[in-house]
């Protein structure tokens, strides 16, 4: 992990909510939710602060003892979700074990550990823009013609995945 981490800012839609930050990655079309700690780490990855600087900032903001290991864990997570700029010259990161960190730091700090989760449509929430009601429709929805489908591929009455253009 690079000594002066830099957060990725391009092609992201960022929405700050109380206690968390939502990020939509336009490159991958994936949505993530950063808890307060992960969000603070991400926001402070400006290429000028070291992991130690960020840990000190976290400690000040969250009023909880923070070690650089917590920051390393956060950076590892952020990198895993593609929210940090890649640094090819950086040495490979030493994996930080969340479980070991909790054992070392105790439960009080554990509550403040950085967490990033993917936001997926809950079981039925997709129905708000139901792929089978929307026009064009999503994969697996019934269709009559190619134009009915998102993928322009109506296959045997069901929308299939998009096909490559013929050459």
């Amino acid at each position: 992990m690079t000594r002066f981490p830099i957060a990725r800012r391009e092609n992201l839609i960022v929405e700050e909510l109380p206690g968390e930050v939502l990020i939509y990655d336009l490159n991958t079309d994936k949505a993530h939710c950063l808890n307060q700690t992960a969000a603070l780490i991400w926001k402070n990855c400006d290429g000028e602060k070291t992991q130690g600087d960020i840990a000190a900032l976290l400690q000040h903001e969250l009023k909880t003892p923070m070690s650089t290991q917590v920051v390393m864990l956060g950076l590892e997570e952020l990198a895993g979700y593609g929210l940090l700029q890649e640094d090819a010259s950086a040495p490979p990161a030493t994996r930080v074990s969340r479980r070991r960190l909790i054992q070392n730091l105790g439960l009080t700090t554990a509550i403040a550990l950085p967490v990033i989760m993917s936001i997926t449509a809950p079981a039925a929430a997709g129905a708000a823009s139901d792929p089978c009601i929307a026009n064009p429709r999503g994969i697996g929805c019934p269709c009559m013609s190619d134009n009915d489908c998102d993928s322009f591929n109506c296959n045997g009455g069901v929308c299939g995945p998009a096909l490559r253009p013929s050459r």
Partner: protein
Amino acid sequence: MKTASAKATGALVAAFLAGAWRPKPPAFDLSAADLEKTAPLMLSRGAGALGWWRVRESGLQSCSAAEELHQAYRLYTLDSRLNQSRIGKVFALLRLVGIEPILIKGWAAARYYPEQGLRPYGDIDICVRRDDYHNAACALASLDPLRFRVDLHSGFAKFGLRQEEDLYARSELVTLGETDVRILGAEDHLRVVSYHLMREGAWRPLWLADVAAALESCPRNFDWNYCLGERRQARPVVTAISLAHLLLGAKIERIPEAERFSKNPRWLVPTVLNEWGAPTPSMHSRQAVPMLQHLRHHGDLLNGLRHRWPNPIEATTTMNGPFNELPRLPFQIGNSLFRVATFLTHLPKAWNKPPSNLPGKAKR
């Protein structure tokens, strides 16, 4: 689910959503079991975020059903941000070819909520003057259909409104990000969300919340005479307002002659609750499978017809009927005949269309 049970569940959904569109909704007083039961229905009807707004300050906020609603809230919040930039691009594109569109439903309804993510919308509903429709459709064809789901409407007749120029004259420009978008005036907006709710058989509680939110945000100078003026046209609007008051507790004190919104035919509320409490709303089943597909698979024809039987609210609205105690059957038959006729008119073209494609065929 039996009808009585569906109605009881629908009543729970109504209790869940009562006042949910307000910045400070009333305290959540359903039990954990009720929350577990209704959360999937809220999610399937696009009201998950609104459900979270209601439950977020209660003792049940951390249970698994509430967490599902919370996820919907997060998702719709991001969706709303994405859609806002898309709306700006659609307006810019149409203005480039000299067309001034009016945005309806979707964001136009969401702006009456405390946060726009509370009111999700899958597509961008745009109305243009009938004369501009063809050019607008051509201009929008350049957009990526996977990212821009634009539902372009020719005029406003589909929403029970007719006088285009009056609607434009009463419309207003509001700021959305870096763009000024045109929306209907407050009176016409209330008419559109009400008519849309009723024409679709009121199967989505979110649409009734739209009516409630618009109603409670009416400006001081709201012209009730214009909004409810023409009696026949105003029937669905009056009924929708009445439903918002009876089921969701929308405040109607500021409306002149408010007492008229407390009277309703006996069949009205049960019809709505039945839709809200059913595992699959009637309209959902209808839209999921096109009739032509039922027709091609003969054994399934009966099923297709069953799903297309309109509920009393849809039938009455589309047939311009009065919402009274008389039986709804004539309107339901009328609505069905009208739709059958429309279907048959388009059938030869659709039937003769060559099969879409064979498996594995590469195209485009």
